[in-house]
C-alpha cells in the first residue's frame, strides 16, 4: 500500500510538474491561431520527452551519473563547452521567463506591478533552493501544479463538439489565416516546450540527488510512462481552452493573463483563483528546476562538487553559480523585457539545441560499460534514432524559420 502511494504521488508530481510557462504560452497561442491543428506536435513532443527521460533516469540510476557529467566525457571538452554555453544561455532565458511568470501570477492576484515583484520572487526561489529539501521541493510544487487541471475542467464545462475537436486534431492542416512557415514554427515551439533540456538536466541530476538505484527504475518508468502523457493531455487542455474561448473572440495571446482568461470565463472566480495558483506553482517549480540546472551543468562540466544532497558549504561553487544565475535572470527580467517574447525564444531555441543533449544520452544508454546489461532495447533504439533525426532536422530549420516568420508574428 505504501509503495502504491509512493508511486501514485510520483505520477501526480510528474503530471503537475510537466507544465511550465513555455507550455502555457505555446499551447495558448497555438490554440487561438491554429485550433487543434497542431495537437500532433504536443503528442510528438511528449513521446520524445518520455524516451529521453526514461534513458536519463536509467543512466542516472545505473551509472550514477547525470547527463551533463557525461557530455564532456563522451563528446570531448570542446564540444562539451559549446554544449555548455548554448545550454546555459537557453537555460538563462528560460529562468528569466519563469521568474517573470511567477511574478505575473502574483501580480494578477494582487494588482502589484509584476516588475516590483520580480526581486521578491528571485529571492524566494533562491531561498527555497537553499533550504528546502530536494524531494519536498519537487512534491510541493508538483502537486500544487495539479491545479492546472482546471483547464481540463474548463474544456469539459464549455462542452465542445468533441467529434470536431478530435477530427481537427487527427486531420491537421494549415488554417487559411496562417502560412506553412508559421505552422512549422509553432510546431517547433510546441515540441520545444514539451522537450525542454532543463527538464532533463534536472531530472537526471535529481535522480542522482535522490540516490536512485536499480530498484527505482520501475518507479521512474511509471512516473514517466503515466505521468508525462497525462501532462501532455493537460497541455492539450490548455490548447483546447484557448481554441474554444479565445479563438472565436479573435484574441491573440501575448500576455499570461490571457492564458487564464478562458478559465475565468467558463468557471468564474473560483476557477480563476485555482488557475492562478496552478500557474504560480508551475512557474515557481520550473524556476527552481532551471536555476538548479544552471548550477548542475556548469559544475558537472567542470567536475566540481554539486548538489543539494551535501551541505551547501561543501558545494560552494555550485551554489554560487545558482545564486548568480538567479541574480542575472532577475536583472534581465527587470529590463522590462517582454516575458512572453523571452518564453517564445527560449522554447524555440531549446528545440534547436536538443541534439546537443540528446545525442550523448543516446550513446551512453547503449554503452554496456555504464549500463551493464540494461542497455537500450532494439525497439527503444529505433524510436530514439528516429527522434535523433527529427531533432537534427529541427536544429537546422529553427533559426531560418525564426527569421522568416519574424518570431511567429509574420
Amino acid at each position, binding site marked *: 500500500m505504501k509503495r502504491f502511494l509512493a508511486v501514485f504521488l510520483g505520477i501526480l508530481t510528474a503530471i503537475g510538474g510537466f507544465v511550465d510557462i513555455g507550455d502555457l504560452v505555446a499551447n495558448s497561442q497555438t490554440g487561438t491561431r491554429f485550433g487543434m491543428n497542431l495537437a500532433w506536435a504536443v503528442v510528438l513532443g511528449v513521446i520524445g520527452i518520455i524516451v529521453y527521460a526514461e534513458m536519463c533516469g536509467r543512466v542516472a540510476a545505473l*551509472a550514477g*551519473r547525470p547527463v551533463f*557529467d557525461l557530455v*564532456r*566525457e563522451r563528446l*570531448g*571538452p*570542446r564540444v*562539451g*563547452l559549446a554544449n555548455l554555453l548554448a545550454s546555459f544561455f537557453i537555460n538563462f532565458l528560460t529562468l528569466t521567463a519563469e521568474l517573470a511568470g511567477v511574478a505575473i501570477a502574483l501580480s494578477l492576484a494582487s494588482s502589484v506591478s509584476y516588475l516590483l515583484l520580480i526581486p521578491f520572487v528571485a529571492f524566494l526561489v533562491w531561498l527555497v533552493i*537553499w*533550504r528546502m*529539501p530536494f524531494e519536498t521541493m519537487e512534491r510541493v510544487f508538483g502537486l500544487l501544479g495539479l491545479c492546472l487541471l482546471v483547464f481540463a475542467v474548463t474544456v469539459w464545462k464549455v462542452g465542445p463538439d468533441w467529434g470536431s475537436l478530435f477530427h481537427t486534431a487527427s486531420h491537421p492542416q494549415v488554417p487559411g489565416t496562417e502560412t506553412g512557415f508559421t505552422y512549422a514554427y509553432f510546431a517547433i515551439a510546441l515540441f520545444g516546450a514539451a522537450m525542454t533540456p532543463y527538464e532533463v538536466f534536472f531530472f537526471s541530476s535529481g535522480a542522482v540527488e535522490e540516490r536512485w538505484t536499480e530498484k527505482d527504475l520501475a518507479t521512474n518508468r511509471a512516473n514517466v510512462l503515466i505521468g508525462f502523457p497525462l501532462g501532455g493531455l493537460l497541455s492539450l487542455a490548455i490548447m483546447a481552452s484557448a481554441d474554444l474561448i479565445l479563438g472565436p473572440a479573435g484574441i491573440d495571446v501575448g500576455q499570461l493573463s490571457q492564458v487564464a482568461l478562458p478559465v475565468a470565463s467558463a468557471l468564474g472566480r473560483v476557477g480563476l483563483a485555482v488557475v492562478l495558483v496552478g500557474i504560480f506553482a508551475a512557474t515557481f517549480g520550473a524556476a527552481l528546476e532551471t536555476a538548479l540546472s544552471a548550477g548542475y551543468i556548469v559544475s558537472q*562540466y*567542470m*567536475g*566540481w*562538487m*554539486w548538489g*543539494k*544532497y*551535501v*551541505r*551547501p*558549504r*561543501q558545494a*560552494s*561553487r555550485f*551554489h*554560487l553559480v545558482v545564486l548568480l544565475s538567479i541574480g542575472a535572470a532577475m536583472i534581465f527580467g527587470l529590463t522590462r523585457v517582454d516575458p512572453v517574447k523571452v518564453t517564445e525564444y527560449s522554447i524555440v531555441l531549446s528545440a534547436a539545441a536538443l541534439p546537443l543533449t540528446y545525442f550523448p544520452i543516446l550513446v551512453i544508454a547503449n554503452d554496456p*560499460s*555504464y549500463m551493464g546489461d540494461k542497455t537500450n532495447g532494439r525497439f527503444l533504439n529505433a524510436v530514439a534514432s528516429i527522434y535523433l533525426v527529427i531533432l537534427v532536422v529541427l536544429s537546422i530549420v529553427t533559426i531560418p524559420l525564426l527569421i522568416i516568420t519574424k518570431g511567429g508574428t509574420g
Partner: protein
Amino acid sequence: MTGRILYAGLELLDHQLRDRDGRLCGNVDDLEVERSPDTGELYVTAIVAGPGALLQRMGRRRLGGWIERANRLVGDQGRDRNIIPLALATRIGPNIDLAVDAEDLATADTERWVRDHLIGHLPGNRHRAPE
C-alpha cells in the same frame, strides 16, 4: 615499467575524479605522458587537473596560464598542484578514484575561496542535508 593498456583519450581524459571519501574533485583535464627510454612506448605518468589546465589542453595557452596564476593568488601554496601522479589513482573506471583528499588538490582552491568569502557567510550553509 609495466601498466595497463588503455585508450587514454576514452578512458582517462575528461573523466570525473573522486577523492578517498568519494567527493567530486574535478575532471581529468590533461595527462602527463613520458616515453619509456627502453621500449619507446608512451606511459601516462600523471593526471593534470586544475584551473587553467583544460584551457591549455584546448590550445588557449595564455588564457590557461593566466587562470593558473590567478589561482595561485587564491590558494596559499605556490607550488604546482595541478599534477597528480598516476600512482595515486586507486581505481580507473567511469570515475577515477584518487587516494588523496579533495582539499589537497589545486581545484579545491577556488572552492575554498568561494566557501570562505561568499557562501560560508550565508546563514544555513552548514545545514545538514536530510537523508
